[in-house]
């Protein structure tokens, strides 16, 4: 008998009597939820920042926010940057990136999380080997809680789906969360409606 079959046989012999599988409700709040406000507050608790409107001049915004940044890797049409994800054929080379810019298809108000996958990153390591990350999020795509979030098709279709909820941190020394840890040092979400980007593109 193979290891596999021996394990499964022992499991079958020892399983307790059958229990029912419950159907979890969505737990939506009975009161109206201010999704943008709740998202920003939740992300702030995990040291992430929210910019509530697209900056008039994105280049200037980046220069002010990251004055020392030289390598800006953009995975979005809203800003060109000076690197594309595909420039990092060897994925570990993404550690030379100062700022990564990417768009998320989903935000979660309850936890301040944004969803990202290989579709948005194109090279996954740009999301955590970079020094800082800026994430564009259409506020219309914010859902109330994790029950809603897990309905997103990424979790069934993508090789890698990440709910990112703040910059990399660690509370392993003294129990208080500090940055840096091994991933990005700061995380900024900009509420940037997709329609605005599409309007700009069609006007060009």
């Amino acid at each position, binding site marked *: 008998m193979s*290891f596999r079959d021996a*394990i499964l046989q022992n499991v079958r012999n020892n399983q307790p009597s059958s229990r029912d599988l419950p159907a*979890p409700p969505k*737990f939506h709040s009975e009161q109206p939820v201010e999704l943008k406000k709740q998202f920003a507050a939740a992300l702030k608790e995990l040291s992430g920042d929210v910019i509530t409107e697209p900056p008039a001049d994105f280049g200037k915004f980046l220069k002010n926010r990251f004055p020392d940044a030289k390598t800006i890797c953009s995975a979005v049409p809203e800003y060109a940057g000076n690197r594309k994800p595909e420039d990092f054929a060897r994925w570990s080379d993404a550690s030379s990136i100062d700022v990564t810019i990417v768009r998320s298809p989903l935000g979660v108000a309850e936890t301040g999380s944004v969803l990202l996958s290989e579709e948005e990153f194109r090279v996954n390591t740009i999301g955590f*080997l970079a020094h800082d990350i800026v994430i564009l999020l259409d506020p219309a795509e914010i859902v109330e809680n994790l029950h809603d979030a*897990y309905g997103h098709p990424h979790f069934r279709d993508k090789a*890698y789906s990440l*709910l990112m*909820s703040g910059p990399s941190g660690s509370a392993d020394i003294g129990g208080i969360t500090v940055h840096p*840890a091994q991933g990005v040092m700061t995380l900024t979400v900009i509420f940037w409606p997709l329609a605005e980007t599409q309007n700009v593109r069609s006007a060009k």
Partner: protein
Amino acid sequence: MSAVDQAKNAAAFIEDRTHEQHLDQLLWMMRTRRDEAASRVPEWEQLRDLASQIKEHTLSHLAHYLEMFESSAKANGVTVHWAQDAPEHNQIVYQILSDRNADSLIKSKSMLTEECETRPFLEARGIRVTETDLGERIQQLDNQPPSHIVGPSWHKTTQDVANLFARVYGSDKEKTDPVYLAHVMRVNTRPLIEQAKAGMTGANFAVAETGAVVTVTNEGNADLSANVPELRICSVGLEKIIPRNEDLAVFIRLLTRSATGNSITQYTSHFRSPRKNGEMHIILVDNGRSSRLGMEKFWRSLKCIRCAACMNTCPVYRRSGGLSYGSTYMGPIGIIMMPTFDAHRYSELPFSSTLNGSCTNVCPVKIDIHEQIYAWREVMEEKHQINLVKKEAMIVAGKVLSNPLLYRIAADSTETSLKVLPRFALYNHLNAWGRHRDIPQPAKETFHDWYKKHRS
């Protein structure tokens, strides 16, 4: 191997009051934060019920869900292995690495690989293993196992870490600021991460219907371990299976709030398939789990989602440190899990508890922890695994407590004895309770005497 003497090991830890107070305060802060987080979720108790029911359903159909998971993972392009025990698991990992000439491995924290002692096994065979979780790396550098399943180095003060880094990395030992210390670690570990030939993680959950393994970290180090190298290995205990993608919402909402009071960790990561140009292996590990499933009183411990809330609330754990348990899993959950691995070696652990039930009250998946601790004491009694002094004391206590007259005589004479006996007579080797603390001051009169005077 002789039984672990947790009380003796704890004595060494609390010898230095600084460490005892540091750990107690830090963990109580986590417990307080957990309570605040739970109170902000109106459906908290409903979520605990759901989590418990989903886990019990899964465990009662575990073979079915294991096969479903295997089938989904294979369809996603993942190679699935099965290991009956720790040596098999370690051999599979080594074989995967050596077949591909991978001589360096970055690892994210995994209690299962601690349980299997995977790191020393690989290091003895020439593989350089680097822990990427900050706390786990601190413990690796200090040649110690984790002392807590969420914060492996929480028993250390910032000065301890500063001293360690000064010794290993030559940093300034006067600088005890956690931001500085975390930076020292980043600078020294990042190059090892970028150069590694393979990555290894555990899994918090494995979803049967999608074949995804899910990791929960604050640092993103599981993401680094899984994405930077092209070869990725993931070790999963059989009990980590859950049926559906939607079930994750229930568990993720409970896990971090129970652990640290945050609503979620910074990285909640779902891996279904190998990365581009990569290779992904999942090892499903039994190591005693299928046998525990058949233990009527103890199978529910398999519901554990490793949040450590039971440790943070436990007065014994908070004042004795995780290393005192001499085991992979420590605190209340360790007390009920470890005897399933070795009933003799861990025979004393069920007595390292006040049975106050706080562990059960905070458990997000409603494991009856304190009741299992009591049940393990009964098992140890049946297996004659209790030391003679403890056993005789319990027999006497049993007789006295079951007889009201004997009890009153004993209570009166104890009060008198405490008042008149010299210190050497009260604090001797037979009095385990008084070894590290003072016996309480005797009351002026017993409750029984007071009641007779005032109510009769």
